[in-house]
């Protein structure tokens, strides 16, 4: 216990300060919210992650935003177990034909207002899997996308920025 207290005093928390959201991402998120925000959400957004065909690389980095360094919950962002509890769908992967209907049904099960963040190059434009007989297309070809986070996979900080863009736009809208 003494060691724990000493560590807490001397070393401080592992968590890094909040990253600055790039202007283009914020603008993208703001326009998405302006179009559909019907009530004040405050700073709280519930996220449902959907892997629609990813290689699992993006999932590793999405996991990472929950670790103590990025600690996504301090921004009011929580991952929830059901789309029925979610405000935001975080979707990865080129949408495979075999996942297309599951993604559509997950989107339909998410209550309005809702937003979709497409994470990773595959979600954006199918990445290296473009053109396959088994791939239906990018996420935006199946459900409407509000914010895109590129990268293969995008590092956690980039994913965090994409989500913060939504939060900040929400707060700005509510004022």
């Amino acid at each position, binding site marked *: 216990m003494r060691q724990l207290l000493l560590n807490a005093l001397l070393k401080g928390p*592992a968590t890094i300060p909040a990253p600055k959201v790039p202007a283009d991402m914020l603008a993208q998120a703001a326009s998405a919210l302006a179009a559909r925000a019907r009530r004040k959400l405050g700073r709280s957004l519930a996220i449902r992650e959907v892997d629609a065909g*990813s290689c699992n690389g993006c*999932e590793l980095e999405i996991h990472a935003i929950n670790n103590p360094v990025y600690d996504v919950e301090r921004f009011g962002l929580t991952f929830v177990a059901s789309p029925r509890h979610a405000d935001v769908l975080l979707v990865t*992967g080129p949408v495979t034909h075999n996942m297309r209907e599951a993604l559509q049904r997950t989107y339909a099960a998410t209550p309005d207002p809702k937003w979709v963040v497409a994470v990773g190059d595959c979600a954006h434009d199918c990445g290296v*899997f473009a*053109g396959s007989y088994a791939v239906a297309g990018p996420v935006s070809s199946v459900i409407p996308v509000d914010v895109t986070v590129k990268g293969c996979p995008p590092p956690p900080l980039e994913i965090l920025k994409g989500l913060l863009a939504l939060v900040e736009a929400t707060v700005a809208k509510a004022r």
Partner: protein
Amino acid sequence: MRTVAAKSLAEIIGRTRPAGDGFARKDVARPEWTALAVGCAESWHDLFALWFEGGRMRMALIDRGAGRRAIVSVTCVRGAYAAVGHYHAPAIRLERAMRDLYGVKPEGLPDARAWLDHGRWARRADGKKAKAPEAYAFLPAEGEGLHQIPVGPVHAGIIEPGHFRFTANGEAVVRLEERLGYVHKGIEALCAGLSPDKAARIVSRTSGDSTVAYGFAFARAVEAALGIEVPARAQVLRGIMAEIERFAHHLGDFGAICNDASAAAIHARCALWREKLLQAVAQAFGHRLMMDCIVPGGVAVDLAEEAGLSEALDAAEKRLGHVVRVYDGSPSILDRTVSTGIVSGELVHRFAAGGFVGRASGRDFDCRRDLPYPPYDAVDFKVVLRTAGDVNARAWVRIEEARESIAIIRKLLDRLPEGPLVADIPAGRAGEGAAVAEAFRGDVFVAVSIGKDGRIAHVHARDASWFQWPLLEAAIEGNIVADFPLCNKSFNCSYSGHDI
């Protein structure tokens, strides 16, 4: 009763000499093919891979006792061949997959259902028209008071998609049946006709969590096919990357197992030190997961920053020691992991299950030692073994392997030679090559054929998960539904790697 007598690899292969990649290659007729399939069932040799390529079914087999490995091929007659799965159950899903992708007919296969094809494709892998959708009939489980719990494909956590159909009696699981294939991306067809460099980017994303291992196995297969000598520095750097990948996953997944046993603090610790390590890796190799760092011919990046990497590894190793002591001293965690999700030694041997799933149930196999490849052929390390086969045993194998990985990385860093990073890929040379790499979850096998034009004619990548997923169904039987996340996490099979 079987009517076909088993034959050993030695009998069939005879004097056929192994190629540079260690695999002897032989075309066989139907009776010999069948005799080898029965040999798998009799545990004379291990079924390592089974795939369709250019009108032939091909089977990679390993006879560990005799130190032989071979790729045998049988020509399909009017698209048909004798199903290996008729004799040897571990082949069934592989054969269902090849039937879906290429329309090949495995005669006598006990399961007529599609596997990767969910009836949603317009075309299949060979470009022919895909079948019309049909309802998927799950295997029955009958009895008084049984109920079904369907889970997925979209799961509750941040996990890949797949469907689990539980039949339970109250809390006790009577049967679990998996249905996979949701993330099938058509990797084999995508790679056909590409240059090895371009195909490497796709194969490295077969399962993104094992991107180093896939890149490693694919590069070695191409190098074997084209007779490329890889520079010494690249060999050692590949080993360092592969061990970092192993260590990072073992550390993170150990935390995740503890999290499923309600020990969130251990999870947070492991996640923190995994993160610090990945940040150091990004400094050292330019990418947190080291994607595309291994390329055919060598490596694409040099080690930029060694001090930070060593420091992060030292720190992570120290912290691993702390959390393991907490784990071992916490009856509440051990109560969940000890004697949960047991897989028998008999099953892991029959399925030739690799990785910690096999080694936690007494199957003493690790590609790094048993099918040695650089740089492991020149490094001493221990292959960790347990026999209990429960969640606890799998967790311990991973802890001890993580420690071994650190030791290996230190040895490799000490002997990192100077020199070039990559060899040229020769033009106008055709060939075929096969290679393995030990990923964190087990052996990855890649077979590649390259045409005279230097383009990929065919590539097949087989994840360790193919032979582990079926054992998860066995592991959960008789356990309670609430222990499924724990069992599943202790296996951590790949969906994407399996769904290809």
